[in-house]
């Protein structure tokens, strides 16, 4: 197994640091899958590890790295899976915003390490300084790779583009202080409603004229306690109740400069939030619905 890569452009380095910071907020542990054409960050639920991932992030290597070499486990298994503390990587990359270059490689120094060599400009002279971080990693054995495959999700009932994440985040952060669950409701007419209920109040925020990317047909509301708005066709509305905190953490991804975010809802069961950047980074977050 071998891995060696070099990043020299300021933009991608900043993006990379932002992505890792966002991931470190979502989870303590994460898995880095190194493949020939892409890097994947995968986060499984902290509590029950062998569960389908809750976060799936793809980074195409050509956009980020000026040099990228890797040799996988063997000819049939060309990937490398590494497990490590996401915070460790994030903290080591804090200085990346002002760095000149980043070398990332897999090394063996007492234990397997992801070695980051950051070249920093000196504030006082033309000299550069070299900072090396050795982050201990666990090489994940092949028999456990199956736990980190891309989750197979049911076909979403609706995919709707989200309003600017900053706006959405402030809304959710307010709601978060009041209730632990929020109902995301999306209609085929391009309306998105966030709703919480407490003993004292019912708060909803509506966004309208959002672009609907796909709509999977009439929704069956026969078994539910859905409250309808007067002039709304319920068969064109689907909803899902999710944990406010999880949604809020995903929205902190607004640090990553993205060009669009899509929210896909599988009626009452699952919310898939997908963020895409100009560099073709795809960050997907899976939040399962709460059903009573």
């Amino acid at each position, binding site marked *: 197994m071998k891995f060696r890569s070099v990043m020299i452009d300021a933009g991608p380095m900043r993006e990379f640091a932002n992505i890792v910071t966002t991931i470190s907020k979502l989870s303590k542990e994460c898995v880095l899958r190194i493949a020939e054409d892409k890097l994947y960050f995968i986060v499984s639920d902290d509590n029950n590890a062998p569960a389908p991932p809750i976060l799936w992030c793809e980074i195409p290597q050509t956009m980020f790295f000026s040099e990228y070499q890797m040799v996988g486990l063997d000819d049939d298994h060309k990937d490398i899976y590494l497990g490590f503390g996401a915070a460790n990587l994030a*903290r080591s990359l804090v*200085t990346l915003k002002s760095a000149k270059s980043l070398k990332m490689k897999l090394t063996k120094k007492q234990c397997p390490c992801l070695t980051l060599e950051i070249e920093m400009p000196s504030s*006082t*002279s033309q*000299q550069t300084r070299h*900072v090396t971080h*050795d982050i201990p990693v666990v090489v994940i054995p092949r028999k456990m790779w199956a736990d980190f495959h891309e989750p197979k999700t049911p076909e979403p009932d609706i995919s709707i583009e989200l309003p600017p994440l900053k706006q959405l985040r402030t809304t959710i952060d307010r709601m978060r202080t009041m209730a632990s669950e929020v109902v995301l409701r999306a209609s085929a007419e391009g309306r998105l409603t966030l709703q919480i209920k407490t003993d004292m109040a019912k708060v909803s925020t509506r966004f309208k004229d959002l672009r609907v990317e796909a709509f999977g047909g009439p929704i069956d509301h026969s078994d539910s306690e859905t409250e309808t708005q007067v002039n709304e066709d319920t068969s064109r509305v689907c909803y899902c109740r999710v944990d406010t905190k999880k949604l809020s953490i995903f929205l902190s991804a607004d640090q990553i400069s993205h060009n669009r975010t899509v929210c896909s809802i599988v009626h009452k069961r699952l919310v898939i939030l997908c963020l895409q950047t100009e560099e073709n980074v795809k960050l997907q977050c899976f939040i399962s619905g709460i059903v009573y």
Partner: protein
Amino acid sequence: MKCHVPGANVKVLGRTVHALARFGDELYLESLPDCILLRTLNAAESAYAMVKFNKSFFSYFNYNYFSTEDNEGLKCKISMKSALNTFKSPTHMDKQVENLEIKLDPESCKLIFQLKCKHGIVKTHYISILDCKAMQAVYTKDLVPNRITSPQRILSEALGNFQSSDDQVTLEATTQSLVLRNYLDTNLDLLKIIRTQISLKPAEFDSYTIGEETTITFTLKEFKALLAFAEALNLPLQLHFETTGRPAVFIVHNGTTFEAHFVLATSKADNATQATSTQNTTRTKRKDSSVQDSARKKPHLATDISKCLDEDSHLFNFIDIPENNSINVENNGPFKSSVNGAANQLEIENNNLNDIMDCDNIPGSPTSKTMIKSVFKRCFESTFDPRAIHGVVLAENSDSE
């Protein structure tokens, strides 16, 4: 003693007290005919700081204000907390305070700080004197082979790369480069710690002389404090150090009015660094591990003595602790000439070591959390030999039944 500190210098004094507060819990003040010395020592006795304010630092300086007969110089010990209270916010002090008057009367039991602020506000702090002894450490700063003068920001920028959980730093000085590493305690889980290494080129420093390539390890907490001090005053930092086990001296001065010396004990970096691998190396660390060390070394003193003499860092080789817990420091004759030959030095340390061995009252418990952890951790190591500690009672049963 009575002196006046002008408004602009009050800030410097405030910064000094704040820096010293990061070192120790007690502040020693000594007034001499031409200067005032502030000193402190940390609880583990691994770090010492001395700041000397010359006469010219003060707008008024009368050493003999209370017309005392003796020419010994007035000394007092106060608690660091009370000193900090006087200098609560050093950043704004120069704007508010016009003048500070410090009075020390040999007959009184209070040290008086009187701050004359804007709008005629006068704040007077009466600080209880805990003791009237002084304390001094012996170290060399002039005849050392390794000297580096660094602009204040370089080192603090470099330290910014370390994790906040790191507590010690290893400095590897060669003629080609200066390498800073976070020191890894062998007792901690290697799988959880990031190893960080920063290599600085000599050209970054104002001056860089390495006469003897060496590797020293010292604590980060105090190092950060003294860097912050140098940065706040915008003054370069001078590093003077010898080899492993000998104290490293950090000097900040502005040439005329004040000079600060920060002395940190250094210890040998064992092999658990980026370079090599070992799990069970013994390690003689800061002096606060002396309890553990003496216990371990007693049974096979003869074989280990030379080794521990090599490793031990005796920064304060003359402190004896009387019953009342105040530090009474005597400057014994031979130790005054601090630049001893190697043989002489060994002999001193030998004496001192025997003192520790013979001592009935065992030094205070280790304060550092990692030390406590390490004391217990050793019991679970594969090399643990129960025979080695047989018969050594560190703490007797408090209850006879």
